[in-house]
């Protein structure tokens, strides 16, 4: 087990597309253990994609269960993930271990369904919403060489498109 070095932009390798995993073997699981240890070594970080650690294969580890009041599927390993459904859109703030000292607003789907393999090659279907969906989409972008910097939206234009929390839970204004 080891904490892996994280590539940071402008390293051009972060912009390349990663290849699908084809063998679900012990070396793969060793790498995933390292990726999980690397995730744990960065407090507040909820996901990592293999290319961030310099391995250009379609592997993501994800865990938003440490966030209070966030619906989640627990600690996940997503291999060769594929979004099969995406609904809604919400603007939220993102940062990235590979882009230190900068955060920005990004629009993402609010609810998704995705298929992925686990480290033993079993296919699983997950439904995700909100923060967990955002995290999964952020990590899957890394597999395609995309950073949140590629998806920034202006604050100015995001006023009433974002999720409306309202002031008191019940009396939500609905500007249009």
């Amino acid at each position, binding site marked *: 087990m080891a904490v892996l070095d994280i590539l940071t932009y402008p390293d051009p390798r972060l912009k390349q597309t990663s290849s699908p995993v084809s063998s679900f073997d012990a070396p793969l699981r060793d790498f995933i253990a390292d990726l999980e240890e690397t995730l744990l070594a960065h407090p507040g970080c*909820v996901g990592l994609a293999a290319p961030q650690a310099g391995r250009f294969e379609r592997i993501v580890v994800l865990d938003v269960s440490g966030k209070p009041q966030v619906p989640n599927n627990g600690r996940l390993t997503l291999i060769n993930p594929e979004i099969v459904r995406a609904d809604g859109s919400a603007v939220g703030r993102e*940062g*990235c271990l590979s882009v230190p000292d900068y*955060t920005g607003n990004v629009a993402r789907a609010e609810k998704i369904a995705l298929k992925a393999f686990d480290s033993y090659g079993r296919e699983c279907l997950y439904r995700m919403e909100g923060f967990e969906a955002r995290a999964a989409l*952020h990590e899957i972008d890394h597999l395609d060489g995309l950073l949140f910097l590629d998806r920034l939206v202006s*604050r100015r234009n995001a*006023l009433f498109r974002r999720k409306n*929390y309202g002031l008191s839970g019940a009396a939500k204004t609905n*500007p249009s």
Partner: protein
Amino acid sequence: MKNWFMLTLVGKDRPGIVAKVSAALYRGGANLGEASMTRLGGNFAVMLMTQYEGPPEALEKIVAPVAGGLALRLHIDPIEGELHRHVEPNVRVSVYGADRAGIVAEVTGALAEAGLNILDLESDVGGSSQRPIYIMHIEGHAEGGADKVKRIMEALTKEKNIEVQIAPIDTLLG
């Protein structure tokens, strides 16, 4: 230590301001840092962190000719700034309502009372000249988070007939 300056340039908006000012600074050997530039009421306002290894007078000599040519007023302040000093906002406030005197003071006064440190504020006046509306976006940091800000702002919106939305900014790190 790096010498940082805050350059402020203001004048009637016209094409080419940013390109001409930044080219003059580049040719003069100055480095640009963080900046905020926007068109406000037909004027263009530039706030620009600039790093320059020399006295402010020398920096002024670099910018003044191009600023003069564009009819921009120029102001240069030595600052103690540094890059990589971002404070992460954790609360987002959106406000709108009929434009009237005092709306900004009331809202920002209540936000200050709620302990919100404003990191970024943008506002616009829209609607028509007969019925103007005021729209404001704020991102800030509050020790007690969005819930405390919400409680304090709730009273204000009931009294003042303005719409205020307060949402936590829960930054994803991935």
